[in-house]
């Protein structure tokens, strides 16, 4: 997402942050147990998981805010702890609550600079620049305690950005916001993070937020990272059944590549044929999945429109899970299950109900495929 200005060599060399064998215990309970985690330079790493999964605890360990029970954190390849003030001063954070201090907006944004002994004139210039970046240009003299929640969180972001941190920690920075505000701020934060070219760890329990913000996603469950990869991979083809449920999908299907031609593969899943765009060779065992948003449903027996949608599957509606604007329809074809997201209007028009016979249609490009282990 962000264009890294570092040379490829340096980028390839060492990730900015590496956590090794990070274990955190509270009162004998293991809260975090992660063998290895790497945060690449210029990348926003999304730590996704339910509350209590250990996301924030891992974040605090990686950000040198709290010492883990055991394990080590390498910043730039060098082991670092809470005591290394110089290294720590390259790290800044935004938490759930903005925790603004009494005083003006400028006082708050300048706080970290003052801790570092930055001179008054430089402070003023950098504060003004940071406020501009978060869309609060000219707000310097406003009292911090009169701000709305969204404004306060922007000030908190400015307070972190003004330090030009090498690593930015974001711990559910938007979870207290209303949906409307949150939607706007998520996009805004994502664009700021991308343009700042900062390395960031972004903790959230909201997969939509993670999808928008992160370049890479790690899913945590009970202290462990149970899935990791590109957002498309993790959210589009989760291997783990629990992760699949967490991101709102059916578990992935297992099959084998039967034929290939021109990048289009024919994949056999227990007798059912799927078409997918992949260069995996014939005979490869694969996992595959289709995002519900990519599946369209038609009445059984209807004359299907022409088009590039290669996959057509006769199926029976096994389950209907109403969501907001869409209904998640689980389809079953002799035991092979995929889900489709159907708008409420379509569901009504098609008179969808459990047991109804339908045709599911989706493109070959929508089928995500990965060689199985």
């Amino acid at each position: 997402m962000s264009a890294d200005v570092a040379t490829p060599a340096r980028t390839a060399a060492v990730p900015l942050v590496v956590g090794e064998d990070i274990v955190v215990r509270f009162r004998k309970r293991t809260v975090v147990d992660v063998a290895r985690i790497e945060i690449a330079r210029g990348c926003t790493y999304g730590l996704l998981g339910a509350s209590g999964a250990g996301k924030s605890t891992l974040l605090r360990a990686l950000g040198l805010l709290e010492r883990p029970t055991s394990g080590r954190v390498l910043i730039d390849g060098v082991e670092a702890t809470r005591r290394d003030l110089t290294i720590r001063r390259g790290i800044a954070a935004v938490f759930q609550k903005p925790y603004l201090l009494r005083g003006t907006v400028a006082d708050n944004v300048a706080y970290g600079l003052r801790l570092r002994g930055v001179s008054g004139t430089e402070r003023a210039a950098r504060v003004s620049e940071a406020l501009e970046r978060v869309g609060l240009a000219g707000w310097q003299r406003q009292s911090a305690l009169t701000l709305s929640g969204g404004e306060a969180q922007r000030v908190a972001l400015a307070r972190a950005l003004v330090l030009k941190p090498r690593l930015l920690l974001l711990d559910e920075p938007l979870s207290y916001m209303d949906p409307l505000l949150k939607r706007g701020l998520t996009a805004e934060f994502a664009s700021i993070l991308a343009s700042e070219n900062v390395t960031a760890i972004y903790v959230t329990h909201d997969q939509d937020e993670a999808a928008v913000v992160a370049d890479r996603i790690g899913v945590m469950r009970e202290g462990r990272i149970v899935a990791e990869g590109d957002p498309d991979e993790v959210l589009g083809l989760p291997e783990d059944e629990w992760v699949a449920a967490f991101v709102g999908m059916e578990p992935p299907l297992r099959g084998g590549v039967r034929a290939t031609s021109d990048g289009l593969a024919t994949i056999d899943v227990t007798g059912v044929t799927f078409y997918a765009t992949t260069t995996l060779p014939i005979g490869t065992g694969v996992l595959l999945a289709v995002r519900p948003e990519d599946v369209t449903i038609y009445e059984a027996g209807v004359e299907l429109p022409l088009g590039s949608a290669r996959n057509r599957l006769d199926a029976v509606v096994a389950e209907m899970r109403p969501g907001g604007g869409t209904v998640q329809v689980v389809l079953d074809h002799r035991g092979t299950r995929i889900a489709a997201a159907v708008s409420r209007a379509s569901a009504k028009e098609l008179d969808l109900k459990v047991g109804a016979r339908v045709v599911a249609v989706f493109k070959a490009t929508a089928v995500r495929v990965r060689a199985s282990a």
Partner: protein
Amino acid sequence: MSVYITAIIDGFRLLLSGSQDVWSIIELSLGVSGSAILIATVIGVPIGYFLGMTRFGGRWALILLVNTAMGFPPVVVGLFVFMALSRSGPLGELGLLFTPQSMLIAQVILAAPLVAGVTTAAVAGVPRDLRLQLRALGASRVQEAWAVLKESRRGVLAAVIAGFGGIISEVGAVSIVGGNIEGSTRVMTTAIMFHVRRGEFGLAMAWAMVLIGIALVVNAVLTGLQNAGVRHER
């Protein structure tokens, strides 16, 4: 009710007459208790900060000790100080018994645990996340400590003021170690006891009114500190 009215009128007359006797006792009270609370603050705040902020093995034992010292009956403190300063006691050679200094010692011993205990609570009450936020903005240990102390200043101030109100009103310890010697160790509380016993209600009422005034101010300040509670939400 006439007994009260007469005493209050007498009390006011004595206070307003500028009688040397009455005001010198008030001065001594304020001087001893004021010095005592200052010393207790200097001793108690660092201890309280240390207990509230850091986590170490014997911490709970130390907190229990401070709490126990807070709950010590003043007469017992008076007894211990008296024994220490008495001729046969370990500090008997200093000859401090029945001097203002002896009262000062007793009051410091009474107030310091209170200041330390309330500071502990105030400092521990600063949200952990706020401390994390300070740390994450690059605060060194000293900068973090200073900011935490600033955030909990209301609690510390409350401890100091409550401690002052407590020791200036206290009579058991000061009367034991001071001995209520006129012109030397007679403070307001011991003077009240002395004059009540002799039926001199006007004199007693004069000091009682000053004490009540101090209690009212202390109470008002404490209420004010509570109501203007720190807001961390924003």
